[in-house]
C-alpha cells in the first residue's frame, strides 16, 4: 500500500463492497495511520448491487473519511457506451469493464488497487502484485514484468497505468482469519440469513428486482449466506448456517467448492476469467 502511495501520483482503491475490498480499506488505514488514506475509493456500481452493500459502503467511507467516486454501469448503458445483456439474469460483469476504465479516466488514476487474490482462479495465479496495463487498460499475460523479492517496479509511460493487488498471496482462509483477528466489521450478507432464492445451473440466485424467473422456476426461502458479494444477478448464495466468524472459518476450512464456484459468470467458459482480464477486468 505504501509502495503504491510512494510510487504513484493519483492512486485509486477499487471498492466492490466485498470482504476483500473492506479488508483493503482496513489495511490502508493501518498503513497510513495517523494520516488518512491517501487513496480515492472508487466503486463501479452495476446498479444491480444488494442494498446492504451500498449501505455498508457509505458507512465505511464516512468513518475513514475518504473520497468516494461511484462509476455507474447504468450511466454507461444510458449514454450508449454499453449494451445490456439479455435474458433472465443479465450479467453486468462484462459491462463493468468499460465503466471501470471510464472511472479510472475520470479520476485520472495512474494506479488502481484491487483485492484480487491468486488463489481465486487459475488465470490469477500468475498475476503480479504490480500488474502493468497498457494505454487501453489491457493485460498481456506474456509481457509482465518479473517481480522478485519485495522490489516492485511501478515505472510507466504517460497514459499507462497499473493494477496493484496487495492481497495476491492471501487465501480465502487467510482473509477470514485476519478479519477475525483484527475484528473488522463485515456486511450482513456474509452471515447466514433467510432469503428467497432460485437454483439455476447449480447456483443459488437471490430474489431481487434484477433477477427474473424462467419458466418452471419458483422462489424458495432457504438459509443462506454469500461467500462473495458482487452483482446480484450473478453472485450465488450458498446454503449455510454459519452466523459468526468462527462458524464461517470452520465452514471455509471444510469447503469443497471455490468461492468463484458461486460465480455464475465464470462458468461461461473455462478461460472466461482470462479473457475478461485481457480486456481490463480485475
Amino acid at each position, binding site marked *: 500500500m*505504501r*509502495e503504491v*502511495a*510512494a510510487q504513484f501520483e493519483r492512486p485509486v482503491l477499487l471498492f466492490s463492497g466485498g470482504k476483500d475490498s473492506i479488508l483493503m480499506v482496513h489495511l490502508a*488505514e*493501518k*498503513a*497510513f*495511520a*495517523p*494520516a*488518512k488514506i491517501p487513496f480515492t475509493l472508487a466503486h463501479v456500481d452495476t446498479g444491480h448491487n444488494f442494498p446492504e452493500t451500498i449501505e455498508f459502503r457509505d458507512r465505511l467511507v464516512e468513518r475513514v473519511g475518504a473520497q468516494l467516486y461511484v462509476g455507474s454501469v447504468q450511466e454507461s448503458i444510458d449514454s450508449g457506451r454499453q449494451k445490456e445483456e439479455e435474458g433472465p439474469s443479465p450479467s453486468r460483469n462484462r459491462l463493468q469493464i468499460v465503466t471501470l476504465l471510464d472511472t479510472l479516466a475520470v479520476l485520472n488514476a495512474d494506479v488502481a488497487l484491487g483485492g484480487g487474490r*491468486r*488463489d481465486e482462479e*487459475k*488465470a490469477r*495465479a*500468475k498475476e503480479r502484485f504490480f500488474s502493468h496495463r497498457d494505454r487501453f487498460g489491457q493485460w498481456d*499475460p*506474456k509481457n*509482465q*514484468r*518479473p*517481480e*522478485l*523479492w*519485495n*522490489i516492485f*517496479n511501478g*515505472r*510507466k*509511460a504517460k497514459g499507462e497505468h497499473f493494477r496493484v493487488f496487495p492481497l*495476491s*498471496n492471501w*487465501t480465502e*482462509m*487467510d482473509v477470514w482469519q485476519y478479519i477475525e483477528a483484527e475484528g473488522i466489521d463485515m456486511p450482513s450478507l456474509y452471515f447466514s440469513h433467510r432469503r428467497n432464492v432460485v437454483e439455476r445451473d447449480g447456483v443459488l440466485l437471490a430474489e431481487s428486482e434484477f433477477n427474473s424467473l424462467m419458466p418452471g422456476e419458483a422462489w424458495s426461502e432457504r438459509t443462506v449466506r454469500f461467500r462473495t458479494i458482487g452483482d446480484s444477478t450473478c453472485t450465488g448464495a450458498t446454503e449455510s448456517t454459519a452466523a459468526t466468524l468462527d462458524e464461517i472459518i470452520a465452514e471455509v476450512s471444510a*469447503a*469443497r*467448492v*471455490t468461492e468463484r*464456484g458461486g460465480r455464475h459468470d465464470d462458468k461461461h467458459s*473455462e*478461460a472466461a476469467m*482470462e479473457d475478461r482480464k485481457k480486456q481490463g477486468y480485475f
Partner: protein
Amino acid sequence: MDLLRFTTAGSVDDGKSTLIGRLLYDTKSIFEDQLEAVEDASNRRGEGYVNLALLTDGLRAEREQNITIDVAYRYFATPRRKFIIADTPGHVQYTRNMVTGASTAELAIVLIDARHGVLTQSKRHGFIASLLGITHVLVAINKMDLVDWSEDVFDRITEDYAEFAQKLGVEDLTFIPISALKGDNVVDESEHMPWYHGSTLLHHLDHVNIGSHRNLVDFRFPVQYVIRPDQDYRGYAGRVASGTIRSGEEIMVLPSGQRTVITSVDTFDGPVEEALTGDSVALTTADELDISRGDMIVRPLNLPIVATEIDAMLCWMSDEPMQGGTQYWFRQTTREAKAFISRVVYRIDVDTLHREDVEAFEFNDIGRVQIQTASPIFFDRYEMNRETGSFILIDPHTNNTVAVGMIRGTVRSAEKLAEQLREATTVEREASPDVVWEGWNVPLEVREEKNGHAAAVVWFTGLSGSGKSSIARELEQALFAEGCRTMLLDGDQVRHGLNGDLGFSPDARKENIRRVGEVANLFYLQGNIVICTFVSPFQVDRERARALFPEGRFIEVFVDTPLEECERRDSKGLYARARKGEIEQMTGISSPYEAPETPEIRVETVGREVADVVHEIRLVIDEVVRRGGAAHP
C-alpha cells in the same frame, strides 16, 4: 501458523504439474468445481485418468503448448503449516522465471525423471536455487513406477546428484523416490517401495526445519514513505528489512550520516515497544531531520556497506540484450539511482558451471558484473541479507525490469591495490614497546652445527590446487628421511588452529601471513628447514615474511599452475563453490593473485610427476642448506 514458501522446478515432462496437482489433491486443497473442470478436460482429451497437471496449468496459451510458461503461485495448508508454491517452468528459455520463483523461496523441489537420471536441467535448477540463497533442496525422483520401483535406479541418481550438489554447498539435501501420478510417497507412503524408509514428500515439507533466511541482527530500515498528517507528526514509514529497533535507541540516517534518537515506534494500534524484522511500522525521531524515501535508518555502530561501485551476480531478464554504456535505474530496497554496467566479468554456463568471456548479457544469461551507480547505495552482501543485498535494473525507456541482481560486495578499486604495493616498499617490523628482547638461549649457529645443516624457510606460493601441498609434503619426507630437521606449515592446518579467527578479507589474509611468518621464524631459529605452503596471494605480504629472515635463507617457490588447470583439479571443490558465489574471496576468481616477480624458484606442474618437481626444487635448496652458516655474516 508457520509459512513455508517453496519453488518447484523440473524439466518439461518431469511431471512437475502432476506433482503439484497431487499435493493439492491429496491435501484436499482442490475444490469440487475445479476437479470437475479438470475431469471434463481430461475426458475431452481422451485421457483415461484425471490429469492432475491440468489443475495447475493456468493460462490458455500454455495449455495449448502443453508447457507452463510463467511463474504460478499455488496455496495449500496442512494442520501444521501453510504453503506457498512458486511453480516455475522447466522449459529451457525460462531461466528468468526460475530465478523469480526462487527469489522468495526457502526450499526448492528439484524433480528428476527416474527414467532419465540427472540431466543438465536438474543441475541448472539446483544451481539457480543455490545462487538465490536457497539452502534446502529436496530432490524428488519421480516416475518410479516406470522403473519398476527400483532401488538401484534411486541410489544411482541420488549419488549422481549428491556429487553435483556438493559443489553448490547445499546445506540440506534430501532425496525422495515418488510417483506423482500414482501418489506414492507424495502424501501417502508407498506400498511399492518397502526399501525406502524416509519421509514422504509432504511429511518432509511439513517438518523440515527452515532456519530463517532473514537477518535478525543487522538493523536496516529503508524509508518507504513519510507520513505527515499535520505539522505535529512526522513518521518515517517502512518495513524493518532486518534486525530490530526500540524507542530510545540511537540511530543514524544514510546518506546524510546524521544521528538522532528514536522517540516512538508507531502502528495503527498505537506505539509499540519494539519492531522486529518484517514488521511494518512508522518511526519518529527526536530531532527533525531531512529524511525521505530511499534513505536508510541504521544503528551508528552497525552500518551497511556504502558504495557506488558494486560487484554483483546478475541475471538478464529481458529480450533486449544488455547495452554497454546505457543508463539503467538501479533499484534496491526503496532506493533508486542511475547506474551503468561498467564491466562484464564473466558469464556462467548454467549447465556446466563454466565461466565464459562475453561482452554483454542476453536473455536468461547469468554472470558476474560490476555496476557503477550515480549515488551511493547502502547494502549488505546478498548472502548476509537478502533484503538489502538484492536489486533490479530498470530500462529507463521501456520501464521494464531488465535484470535482477545479488550483491557480492564492492569493486576492489585499482587505487587500493596500488596503495598496498606502495606499503610494500617500506616493510618494517613493529615491536611491542614493553617487551624486552633477551636473545635465544641456544643460538641458531650452535643448533645448525649440531643438526649438520643450515636452517631455511621454503615458502610455497601459488593458487589453490596448484600442487603446493603435494610437492611440499614429498619434499619434507625426503629431507626428513635424510636426517634433516623439518617442519611443515600448511595453510589449511594453520587456519584450523592458530588462525582460526581469521577470514579471507585482504586484511585477514595479511594478518594470516604475518602470523605464519612469525611462527616460521620461531621454527627457523630452532634450526629447522621450515616448509610453508600458503596461497599468499599478495606480494606485499610475502615480502613482509621474507624480511624476517636473513638474506638467502628465504626461498620463495612459485608453483606456477594455470588457473584453468587448478580449476580442473579442484581437489577441495573450492572453485566450484566460488564460481557459484559461495566463497567470497576466492583467489584467482574473486580475489587477485599477484604472481611473484623474482621468486628463487619457479616450477610448472602441468603434466609432471611430483617427484620430478621436488627434484628440481632440491637443486636449489640443497645448495642453501649445505652452505650452512655461511649466510650469517
